[in-house]
């Protein structure tokens, strides 16, 4: 269990492109929908790529905008301008 990472986002129109981008970039990700939120679990590593979100969204996207719809996350976070990566670093 400890090697599993997750991200939970509000389930709204704004988060939809981010959710689609995550699911496309992380083939092992598992989506669980709850009322008002979605939780995405992924073994070992989960990445949110700016480029993929931009492709879904059709405009420039600053990864910091992710925080507006972010509920919770599990894992060590490594964030730069292009990628937002969750993993458990030993």
């Amino acid at each position, binding site marked *: 269990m400890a090697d599993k990472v997750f991200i939970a986002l509000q389930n709204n*129109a704004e988060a939809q492109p981010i959710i689609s981008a995550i699911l496309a970039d992380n083939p092992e990700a598992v989506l669980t929908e709850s*009322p008002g939120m979605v939780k995405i679990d992924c073994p070992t590593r989960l990445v949110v790529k700016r480029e993929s979100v931009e492709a879904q969204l059709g*405009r420039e996207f600053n990864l910091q905008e992710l925080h507006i719809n972010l509920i919770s996350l599990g894992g060590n976070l490594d964030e730069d301008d292009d990628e937002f990566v969750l993993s458990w670093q030993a």
Partner: protein
Amino acid sequence: MSIDLKTTSIEPLRRTFDHIADKLGGDKPATRYQEAVWGLQPAVNFHYRPTWDQRYALYDPSRTAIVMRDFDDLIDPRQYYYGTWTMQRGRQQDSQERNFEFVEKRGLLAMLDATWREKITRFVLPMRHVAWAANTNNASICAYGYGAPVTSAASMHMMDQLGVAQYLSRAGLILGDNDPILLDVAKAAWMTDVMWQPMRKLVETSMVTRDWFELFVLQNLVIDGMVHPLVFERFDARIIKHGGAVFSMLSEFMVDWYAESSRWVDAVVKTAAAESPANRAVLEAWLARWLPEASAALTPLADYAFDGEGAAVIAELAQALRARIARLDLSVQD
């Protein structure tokens, strides 16, 4: 007493409208953009043909030589519908407004020397007539086009072009210290100056182009694809070298807008070309016809703006446009 809080998960019966689900290939969450444009085109229950042109139905996909299985495929990568578009333009208008105020308050345009004032008056200001024609042309694309994704985006493009024309007019007013005389001079140049006549002829020809997709290619890809880099990149770079950085402040919107709207223009043309070899051939024939015409029409203007080096500048711009067209998987013969 203890209270147990429980959540009940209610599975939605449907995630989107049936016609959107058909297009998406399943009942998946759709974006607001998709729900705003797909299936919006009126297609049935028109009993009579319009009296003004009985060859076609009121909304008729055969008004263009381009054939699409589904015109709803011509989507806008910017995903603009009324809400997203107005918010984006509102922000840009605010920042452009501040630029105008800044320039006006400090009288920055007054510092330009006479040569460059003259060049702006005779070369840049008449471009507002070109932008106005682009406005009318996109209204025509919207009126005669088929499929809400492309016609709605064309109507926003129409308003954007009106904005470009208005910003140019305002630059002219500031340059003339709120006296519209320079706009009259620019209008006279547009109507009578020899160097403007080939461009005016091309613009007026575009306004009577009946095939809306051909007009799209001519106006939005070819004319804009030459005019915007010429005026707002090349001429801009030149005037900055001569102490005219203020010009960039007045044309900031045009630069951002051109980069942004090019993505839409490219996506529409690329999708139409990828649809069938027949479409590709039609598009290539249009480009082969209009690209040389646009180059020829702009050369005398570029000659004036770049002191006789117009042909070289236009050749470079045409080359750049060819490279852009090549990225759409189309080729144009030299």
